[in-house]
């Protein structure tokens, strides 16, 4: 058992696999000596050297292309896109190429590659450095999408992502980097398996990424009001652990989904549609979504706080659902 931050857990997962497998390497903008924009790869350059912890120019398309081409030819690259906002620049490589190659080529080329990227608001970084892009990627057949919360999940799921033979997009929330937690397993956590972060009987709050921490706070408050909330973290957005969601909903009969993305067209909508289509008979009330607003992420704190789905918004949604 070891206490680790989310950032340390991510670094640990990469380092474990790089020690074991010479074909695993990390590249991206400023990941080398500089240690990454947020410091995730700090120290890795010294341990693994410039060939394996490799700085790239500011060329997001070429970063993903380099991951695709090297994954197709024997390596297991980890490509870092400094902010997921910049992934738009690389969407062609990620969507038209990495995601589809296995299928287009009749299953004959495998792409064991991970794209790590950083989501989320809360640091006054405004519209182009703060958003949450997961729905852009869960939309795309051929990609697996992972968005863990706790240090233990970050470690285990990153190991599994590196081991996977499909392109995996691995989201990290910039505010979550400092979250600490106990890590007692250094084994991979299978992709597609969710986790109950808190058990409850009255409502299921589905949350992922940093929203898990807000949902847990909300559950604490709700408990004081006599409402027993279960917090379910799918951890992997695709493939999705539908069985776990079904089990929870059949128990609680109420669902609130929270995510930090723009509400319109977001992954929370996909979760909500799945529950409406397949679990309707288990529901006592319609699903509610607590998401980011349908605005660009604003700069000034007072505005940004309005944008972000806060703990109290989750609490309010649960209360309103019961009225």
């Amino acid at each position, binding site marked *: 058992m070891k206490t680790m931050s989310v950032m340390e857990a991510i670094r640990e997962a990469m380092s474990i696999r790089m020690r074991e497998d010479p074909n695993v390497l990390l590249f991206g903008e400023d990941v080398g000596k500089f240690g990454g924009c947020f410091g995730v790869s700090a120290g890795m350059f010294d341990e693994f050297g410039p060939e394996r912890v490799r700085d790239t120019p500011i*060329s997001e398309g*070429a970063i993903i292309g380099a991951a695709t*081409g*090297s994954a*197709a*030819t024997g390596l297991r690259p980890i490509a870092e896109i400094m902010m997921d906002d910049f992934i738009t620049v690389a969407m*062609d490589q990620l969507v038209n190429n990495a995601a589809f190659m296995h299928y*287009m080529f009749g299953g*004959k*080329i495998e792409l064991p590659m991970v794209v790590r990227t950083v989501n989320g608001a809360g640091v006054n970084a405004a519209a182009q450095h703060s958003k949450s892009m997961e729905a852009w990627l869960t939309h795309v057949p051929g990609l697996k999408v992972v968005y863990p919360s706790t240090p233990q999940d970050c470690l285990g799921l990153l190991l599994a992502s590196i081991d996977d033979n499909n392109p995996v997009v691995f989201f990290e929330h910039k505010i979550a980097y400092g979250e600490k937690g106990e890590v007692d397993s250094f084994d991979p956590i299978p992709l597609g398996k969710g986790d109950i972060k808190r058990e409850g009987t009255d409502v299921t709050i589905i949350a992922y990424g940093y929203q898990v921490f807000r949902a847990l706070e909300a559950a604490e408050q709700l408990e004081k009001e006599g409402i027993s909330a279960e917090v379910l973290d799918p951890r992997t957005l695709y493939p999705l652990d539908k069985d776990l969601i079904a089990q929870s909903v059949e128990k609680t009969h109420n669902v609130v989904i929270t995510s930090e993305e723009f509400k319109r067209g977001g992954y929370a909508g996909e979760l909500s549609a799945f529950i409406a289509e397949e679990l309707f008979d288990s529901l006592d009330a319609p699903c509610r979504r607590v998401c980011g607003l349908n605005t660009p992420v604003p700069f000034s704190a007072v505005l940004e706080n309005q944008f972000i789905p806060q703990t109290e918004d989750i609490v309010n949604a649960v209360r309103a659902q019961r009225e």
Partner: protein
Amino acid sequence: MNVTKEQMRDMYRTIMRIRKFESNAQNDFANGKIPGFLHLYLGEEAIATGVCQNLRKDDFITSTHRGHGHIIAKGGDLKYMMAELYGKSTGYCKGKGGSMHIADRDLGILGANGIVGAGQDIAVGAGLSCKYRKTDQVCGCFFGDGSTNQGTFHEALNLASIWKLPVIFVCENNHFGISMSQSRHQAIKDIADRAAAYGIPGVAVDGNDVMAVCEAANEAIARARKGQGPTLIECKTWRWRGHFEGDPGIYKDPKEQEEWVAREPVKRFRRFLEENDVMTAAEMDKIDAEIDQEIADAVKFAEDSPLPKPEDVGKDVYTDFDEEVRVR
């Protein structure tokens, strides 16, 4: 470079396989046997032939929407190519890719590509892999003049140059990006000049002269294998057909078309081989007949092959599970 007579004979077979495959595809498309979009390589055959002559089986290539020639020159099996064009389950991609997405990992073919310029970034990844694994493999990266205005071109050449990657960037300047002539889509004449911006060698060659292409590629590939980094080779050529089959090509100057067709690569190479006592006309005719038979066999294989099963639509999205399919 000394190109041996054996290599020249190999190249004759390659260039003719491409020519005949494409001519057959043109007819089969016109007759409604090949569905979808078809982009033919007719007139540009010398480039794939001359470049791939210098590549080994374990080298890599990336290709384009106009990719049949590259795949044939890298060793592609005409049966599986034809079956793919026909949308059959025995095709290279099990009928999931079609003309624009033929790939064969065992031959180092990292895929034809329907996105203009996309292969350039992927080639950089293959080059990184060759260098990182400390092999002397290289990656040949084919693309057209139109793609040199994409961001990928700049990103890829820059990255390959700073990392000194073993990538040979082969620009097939057929003078058109779809309907837009080169003089309208860029203000330079020689795309090879752009190499200077990345501090790498850039050479322009007659892309309809298979020997000239072969020699330029040989030099670039030798540099790459020695760890001296990438080269940009511009091969000047001409697309005989429209951008796709069905494009009437009204944007082309008929006189210019006539001049380029007169300089066409296959007949020219035949002449060269005869004049230099490499092969007699009779020897070449014999090879032509063998290729005709190979094409006929490929067509028969494609025609006789089963279509994919509808439920196969959900396979190969991921390596480890199938997607749900429709129940009807």
